[in-house]
């Protein structure tokens, strides 16, 4: 297996907030993590990205223990996008997206080509010289996504793209565009792990789903069409018996 998490546990001040989580994914899989606010989705993603240490357990990627990888090595294979984070510094769109090239020693031609491909896929043409502080929320989210995509663009069959609520601020057209792009990259060998509340959009694209309980335990994992039931959703989100959301779920 390509990406494996063995009994990952996260504790904050000695209290367990996540886990134990066990995941075993083939390269070229899309895993969506679903759960209530505070269930530990972002913590799990940060552990995967190497930005937070697990209190227990290990992550392995393509036969190597992730925590033993050097920073520079990990950065070439794991790209991470945090939840929406505004900036106050007037980087241009071009400068911001190119931050994704920092871990790589690309030639200027390779860099330029990858930049144009990524920005085209995120419909950012025409915005290159605009300051990111002047963009709308949705435009800036696409710039941030392009930054993360650029990081793994040329090495997708040996990389993991970790996205924390990537659809935030995107209109329906760009949500669809992103989901299609990610689906295509996954079919080309990229592994995507995302946290999302938009799981109703998932059956059309998703390979795997991990549902977390409000206390951070794994409730279920598998194909969304087989895994997500209205009862599971009710437990994961602690919905009332007469919840209108629950009534709308038809699986």
């Amino acid at each position, binding site marked *: 297996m390509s990406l494996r998490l063995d009994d990952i546990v996260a504790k904050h001040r000695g209290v367990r907030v996540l886990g134990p989580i066990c995941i075993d994914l083939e390269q070229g899989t899309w895993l969506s993590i679903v759960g209530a606010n505070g269930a530990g989705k972002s913590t799990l993603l940060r552990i995967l990205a190497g*930005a937070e240490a697990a209190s227990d357990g290990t992550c392995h990627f393509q036969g190597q223990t992730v925590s033993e990888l050097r920073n*520079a090595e990990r950065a070439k294979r794991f*790209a*991470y996008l945090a939840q929406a984070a505004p900036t106050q*510094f007037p*980087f241009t769109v071009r*400068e911001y997206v190119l*931050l994704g090239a*920092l871990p790589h020693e690309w030639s200027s031609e390779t860099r330029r080509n990858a930049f144009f491909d990524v920005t085209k896929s995120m419909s950012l043409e025409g915005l290159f010289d605009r300051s990111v502080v002047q963009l709308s929320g949705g435009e800036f989210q696409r710039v941030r996504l392009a930054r993360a995509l650029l990081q793994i663009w040329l090495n997708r069959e040996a990389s993991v793209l970790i996205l924390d609520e990537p659809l935030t601020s995107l209109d329906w057209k760009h949500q669809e565009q992103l989901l299609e792009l990610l689906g295509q990259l996954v079919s080309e060998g990229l592994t995507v792990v995302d946290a999302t509340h938009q799981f109703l959009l998932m059956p059309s694209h998703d390979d795997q789903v991990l549902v977390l309980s409000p206390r951070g335990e794994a409730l279920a994992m598998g194909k969304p069409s087989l895994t997500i039931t209205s009862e599971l959703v009710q437990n994961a989100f602690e919905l009332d018996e007469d919840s209108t959301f629950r009534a709308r779920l038809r699986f």
Partner: protein
Amino acid sequence: MRKVLITLLALASVVLALRLGSTSLSLTQLLSGDLEAHTVVWQLRLPRVLLAALVGGGLALAGACIQGIFRNPLADPSLLGVAGGAAFAAALGIAFAPAVAASPWLLAGVAFVGGLLATLIVLSFGGRNTDLYTILLAGLAVNAAALALVGLIGVLSMETTFRSISFWTMGSLNQATWIDVGVASLILPCALLLIRRASTLDGLVLPDAEAQSLGIPVSQSRRQVIVLVAAITGIAVSLTGVIAFVGLIVPHMIRLSMGATHRTLLPCAFAGGAILIVLADLLSRTLIVPMEIPVGIITALLGAPIFVLLLRAQVKA
């Protein structure tokens, strides 16, 4: 192109500051072997102008770095407590240790150590992960307390002591010597080390976890930047006192006019800071001859309106 322009402006401001003063010198006098001009330039003006350029450049570059790592364009090197700490140590020396007060060298050393100690106190609040907001708030508190104590020492001391203490809180280049220039040149290696970290500073503009995923050791890089900034600010304050506003407004002006990536921002901020202090010092010694207005007052009076105009232009854009 813009880098060339700002460098030329910096050089022009240096030439202007060498020419003007209580005695004005023409360019021919500057370049010829005229003895009087030679004395005025080499003994008085050149060390003062070079000190102004090094301190101004260093403070502006330090400000740009601090704003970068705090992800806050309103941050300033004084937030690390270094300026307050240095001024407090100097005030203690002036008021209570005659030997320190009598030796400019010793006084500068004491101020430098005071600045570094204050920074260490501030950093210790941030813990191992150098939590930004804790450091920011601790820095504000330490700086405010240190400056309040400086004020208290000033109020409790005699008239002459009060005057020399006020030098530390308002900044002045009055006593500049070649030795000061020698000490201030230590700012240059610190500045170069920071400029070498330009791409790391770019990455630190992202949220910590994203910067980490780009391969940047976030806490370690942040600590290195803070130590270098504290060293620059400590050297600057120990030589000239607290010159306010440079570290805040110059990087902001450069970002608005030249761009935000640190590869451009840091060298241009250095040049911009040098220009501001060289010109402010020129005004401080020529506005009311033979009196000298502390340069910190000029930088604030000169910088504030420019800053507001730039902000207005930004809002309109």
